[in-house]
């Protein structure tokens, strides 16, 4: 028993010492990332690291390799270390209550990045995410403004069937074109968010639409599918960007190359900088207790050939996309 007590005492002393040492430095923030399954997520990780560095934040990074149990372990590890705040990009929506309650009891604010959770809102300080419906709307609005009152038949490459971004980006685009009777979606199929599927499905669209003569524009739910489709349009002997307008979402480096070459017309950026607004909110909260809004929506910025696509490519190519 006495050994146990001594051990506990030593443990308590050790925690006290380590937390005292941490208070002296800048803010320490733990970041539990899902993994690096897509280029965008890799970019999010590198942007988060550089944002932390530029603010003098000591970032503890844990890659969960797509596993929730690893994320829970990482969050518990951060709590045990006594970090000042925790960022989480949750891999699934369920199962966070226990561990986030522990963080709450330890008075460590939690910020969710780019995905939400099922659970009481008081478990986290705020969440930073994009509005996917708005992304679709911005893309649709660009088309409405570009074709004006000309007739325009649109083919749509959807994301993975049933996935939230696919549903929301479709919904937003349809909302934006609802007022324009001259714009109609004639074909819509899934390209699974991949380049190869995007190319394959676009080839099908072109064949079905008389070699593509009837198609005025392509709307792809992500840039990768658009890049694949551009290849298919070129193979069919048409000019992407002029014969068929191309608009897509995400803002990956390759689409900026395509825009610079005149082969794509517009992209709506899903910014990988979710951490910047999160750090701002945390800094304000730590300073004078300012409680940020529960949902911080990132900007859905439209980029066209007028927005220096070459420069945008250069800025993004090193981020890990």
């Amino acid at each position: 028993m006495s050994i146990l007590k001594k051990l506990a005492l030593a443990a308590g002393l050790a925690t006290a010492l380590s937390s005292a040492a941490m208070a002296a430095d800048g803010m320490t923030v733990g970041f539990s990332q899902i993994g690096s399954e897509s280029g965008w997520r890799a970019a999010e990780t590198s942007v988060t690291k550089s944002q932390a560095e530029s603010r003098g934040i000591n970032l503890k990074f844990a890659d969960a390799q797509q596993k929730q149990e690893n994320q829970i372990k990482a969050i518990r590890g951060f709590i045990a270390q006594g970090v000042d705040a925790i960022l989480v990009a949750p891999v699934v929506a369920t199962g966070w209550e226990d561990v986030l309650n522990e963080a709450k009891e330890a008075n460590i604010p939690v910020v969710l990045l780019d995905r939400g959770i099922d659970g009481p809102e008081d478990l986290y300080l705020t969440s930073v995410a994009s509005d996917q419906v708005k992304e679709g709307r911005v893309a649709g609005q660009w088309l409405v403004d570009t074709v004006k009152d000309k007739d325009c038949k649109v083919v749509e490459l959807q994301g993975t069937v049933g996935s939230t971004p696919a549903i929301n980006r479709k919904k937003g685009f349809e909302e934006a074109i609802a007022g324009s009777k001259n714009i109609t979606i004639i074909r819509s199929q899934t390209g699974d968010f991949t380049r190869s599927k995007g190319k394959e499905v676009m080839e099908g669209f072109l064949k079905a639409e008389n070699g593509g003569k009837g198609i005025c524009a392509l709307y792809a739910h992500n840039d990768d599918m658009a890049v694949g489709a551009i290849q298919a349009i070129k193979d069919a002997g048409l000019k992407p960007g002029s014969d068929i307008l191309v608009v897509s979402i995400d803002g990956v480096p390759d689409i900026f190359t395509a825009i610079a070459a005149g082969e794509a017309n517009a992209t709506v950026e899903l910014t990988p900088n979710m951490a910047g607004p999160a750090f701002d909110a945390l800094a304000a909260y730590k300073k004078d207790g300012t409680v940020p809004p529960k949902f911080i929506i990132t900007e859905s910025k439209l980029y066209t050939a007028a927005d220096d696509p070459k420069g945008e490519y250069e800025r993004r190519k090193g981020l890990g996309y």
Partner: protein
Amino acid sequence: MNRSLRPLLATVVIFLIAYAAAVFQFPGLLSTRVLGNFLTDNAFLGIAAVGMTFVIISGGIDLSVGAVIGFTGVLVAVLITWLGWHPLAAFAAAFVVAAAFGAAMGLVIHYLEVPPFIVTLAGMFLARGGASVITQDSVPIDHPFYSAISSLYWRLPGGGRLSFVGLLMVAVFVVGAIVAHRTKFGSYVYALGGNATSASLMGVPVARTTVQIYTLSSVLACLAGIVFSLYTSAGYPLAAVGVELDAIGAVVIGGTLLTGGYGFVFGTFVGVMLLGLVQTYIIFDGTLSSWWTKIVIGFLLFLFIVLQRLVFAASARGDRVAEKA
């Protein structure tokens, strides 16, 4: 000292040295919070690894463990959330399904003389596929009984938590050690792994023991699945992918011989704690890629395989010397 205890001793010594070195760098690692987390966060892995220890001591392998954990989580979640069952009834149903599943694998392994690797690989595909057919999404479990057990813990001095699931894992290890080292079934398992032919000549009921071993492994995997669903309050068909490999790793690092006939349940416990320590260290460091966990585990595995070779070669020589004398 008894030579056969050397691999176990090596595991314990390596764990203590590694822990001391980690604490030296990050004093925060020596807190009741971290020690409590070791138990809670690795509870499902530890429970599954106990079953795996029996399988490996008997000279077999069970690749279906991770998939059974995932399947159990989904089954329990669906029974509770969609069909409104009481969690205890859902647990009972899951245990029955898992026991039948394990027994079937044991029967095929023994009577059709198919290598356990292939049979349990098929079992893995069946269980993972079955879970994904039931649902592709994560099914939340929202039941007062569930939240009551998942938030059941005792506070330790220093802010740590000794959770129910952590204690459950310790209990499974204690019972597992008693069964392995103090019961007839345990001695049959060792005999089977030493040499199946001579075991049957000595009167070990090989068929019954094989079926019991794989049933035990699946039942413990099912318990691990329940613990996992308590851990995340949800059932997810892709949960615990690859946990069988972590369990095998923990068993081997714990000093159990992959060829069977030799090993300790307690060694597996130290193996699981060592895996947990590596992960926790990398989280505390915060700059290393988490894939270093895999590299360190790979290195440890290699080290222990070499170590076992050396120890057993040395003890074989020692035996010959003893015979001559």
